[in-house]
């Protein structure tokens, strides 16, 4: 009997990022000529968060869903010499990685969905690179976040990194989400390399106050959708509504009974919110 493979295929490629070769893992599903939908994972996790979108025929009949692991994440390597470095993601390096992947894959005005820090960078892309994208979807997206806990706890020898990263974010999963998917989401955090979540939070907490950028966003050049779960206390519904109010034309929806990881913590419920957005993107393409 033939093995029932999922429709996702993954490959590796080396791109030059921040002046150095980086071996990246990129996976995708859907037709080669489908509308490209580039997916950005959350801080301290990887592209597996998008497996449900990639295995959803209602999405892949029209969309070529592509997700990649940032350097240091998932199956992408850290750069050579990482063992002597402290990892820190910045707005510059994050933006460069996204555009480099889109260019290397010859994606023409892809739609893009990013969650959490991936939602935050959506605003940077909307402000400075709107013409590069067909539509932008910021999940758990807001213009800034004030620091509210000491991230050094995430990477120190007397606290297990995998355990603390998962325990810190476990409450960001809505209590209604299925246990199976809650724990699969947390497993991604448990597997993250030492200091990677903390290094991502440098971007998220310190290097991405985009309140000066939201007035630059012109949604007539690139539509912007914001989706935030009501149980998200990292990017709260109020944060997203404030952000949307500062961007004319931005469409914001607060998702009931969802947390910070809707595509992976409650994929069935997320369909109710993401399918209408994708329908609109397809209709306007």
């Amino acid at each position, binding site marked *: 009997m033939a093995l029932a493979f999922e429709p996702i295929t993954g490959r590796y490629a080396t791109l030059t990022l921040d002046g150095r070769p980086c071996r990246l893992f990129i996976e995708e599903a859907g037709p080669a000529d489908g509308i490209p939908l580039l997916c950005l994972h959350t801080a301290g996790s990887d592209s597996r968060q998008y497996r449900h979108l990639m295995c959803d025929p209602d999405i892949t009949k029209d969309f070529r869903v592509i997700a990649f692991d940032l350097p240091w994440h998932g199956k992408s390597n850290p750069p050579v010499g990482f063992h002597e470095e402290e990892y820190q993601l910045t707005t510059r390096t994050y933006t460069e990685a996204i555009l480099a992947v889109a260019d290397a894959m010859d994606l023409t005005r892809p739609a893009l969905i990013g969650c959490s820090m991936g939602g935050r960078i959506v605003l940077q892309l909307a402000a400075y690179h709107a013409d590069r994208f067909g539509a932008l979807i910021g999940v758990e997206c807001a213009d800034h976040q004030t620091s509210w*806990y000491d991230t050094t706890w995430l990477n120190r020898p007397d606290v297990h990194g995998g*355990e603390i990263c998962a*325990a810190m974010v*476990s*409450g960001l999963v809505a*209590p209604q989400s299925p246990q199976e998917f809650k724990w699969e989401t947390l497993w991604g955090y448990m597997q993250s390399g030492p200091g990677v979540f903390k290094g991502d939070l440098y971007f998220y907490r310190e290097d991405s106050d985009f309140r000066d950028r939201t007035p630059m966003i012109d949604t007539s050049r690139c539509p912007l959708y914001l989706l935030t779960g009501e149980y998200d*206390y990292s990017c709260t519904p109020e944060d997203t509504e404030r952000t949307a109010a500062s961007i004319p034309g931005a469409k914001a929806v607060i998702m009931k009974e969802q947390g910070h990881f809707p595509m992976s913590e409650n994929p069935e419920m997320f369909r109710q919110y993401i399918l209408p957005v994708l329908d609109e993107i397809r209709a306007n393409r």
Partner: protein
Amino acid sequence: MSGDEVAARLARLPELVNGRESLVRRGRFLSGEFMVEADEVAVHVKVHEGRVVEVAKGPFRMRAWRFAIRAEAQAWTRFWEPMPEPGYHDVIAMTRLGVARLEGDLQPLMANLRYVKEVLESPRIGG
């Protein structure tokens, strides 16, 4: 729920925690004491190798503890609802919301955060 009622709920921790083998195992490297407060009512919890061995209600004149989790009694009430509302569904969420505070030596708390969170959630699970 008053502070006294929160303390009564916490008094059940030994029965709620010690019978759960997986939870005790998760806390097997934690031995020590922490304080839980609801308004002005202090509850001292003593853990030995993941088992809750003593829960005592204050006020105390001399009582050592490593870390403290302090919240309003109304916050604990909402925290223990079967399906808590956003912001009251998690101790870290309550901290972010500003209705709870984590104080003292946070190292043993952070090193055992999942365990401590599940201990504090156990009155919800146990009804």
